[in-house]
């Protein structure tokens, strides 16, 4: 069974707007990772945030982590058509990653 739940399940925005996706999880974690999946490139790692970090940036990506609420958010700024994909959060506990169900993001030109 999957631990994480992403919200919303689907998101459609105009190119240039910001997109925010949320992830909630149930158990304690070592780190939380975000991945992107599209038909062209498969599943690709975007960013990793450790349990003792609260915020992390990478290019147009900003990730926050609130371990007290067991939640994380991924913000994509200035969205582009190429950002159209499914986005998954994955929590790392012991030896494996546990993925959420994903948010399907569509960027409209």
């Amino acid at each position: 069974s999957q631990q994480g739940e992403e919200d919303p399940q689907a998101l459609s925005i105009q190119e240039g707007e910001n997109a925010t996706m949320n992830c909630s999880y149930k158990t304690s974690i070592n780190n939380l990772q975000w991945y992107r999946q599209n038909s062209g490139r498969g599943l690709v790692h975007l960013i990793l945030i450790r349990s003792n970090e609260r915020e992390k940036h990478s290019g147009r990506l900003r990730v926050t982590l609130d371990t007290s609420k067991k939640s994380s958010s991924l913000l994509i700024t200035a969205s582009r058509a190429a950002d159209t994909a499914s986005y998954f959060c994955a929590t790392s506990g012991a030896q494996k990653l546990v993925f959420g169900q994903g948010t399907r993001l569509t960027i409209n030109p």
Partner: protein
Amino acid sequence: GAGVSQSPRYKVAKRGQDVALRCDPISGHVSLFWYQQALGQGPEFLTYFQNEAQLDKSGLPSDRFFAERPEGSVSTLKIQRTQQEDSAVYLCASSLVGLAMLEQFFGPGTRLTVL
């Protein structure tokens, strides 16, 4: 190679047939993971290898599923007597060191369809 490769990319099997899915991880990567991804869902963990040792197989859904990595490099996921519910994309991932503390590099997956 430059990334994780998987073969075949697509496999159609009749119910009851055995299938074997291959994964070539990034050279030098110690850890190798198999995941199953149903349509519209996130990947679900199947099993984990550190070198040739299978350290966790808690996600394998039944004893029809078997994975091996005999020389600590290439891995094969075998499904015996396939059932329709086995239809999914099977993803392989590798990472440089053990456990899930670092990013994992995923292959393109094998889409299995059981008729």
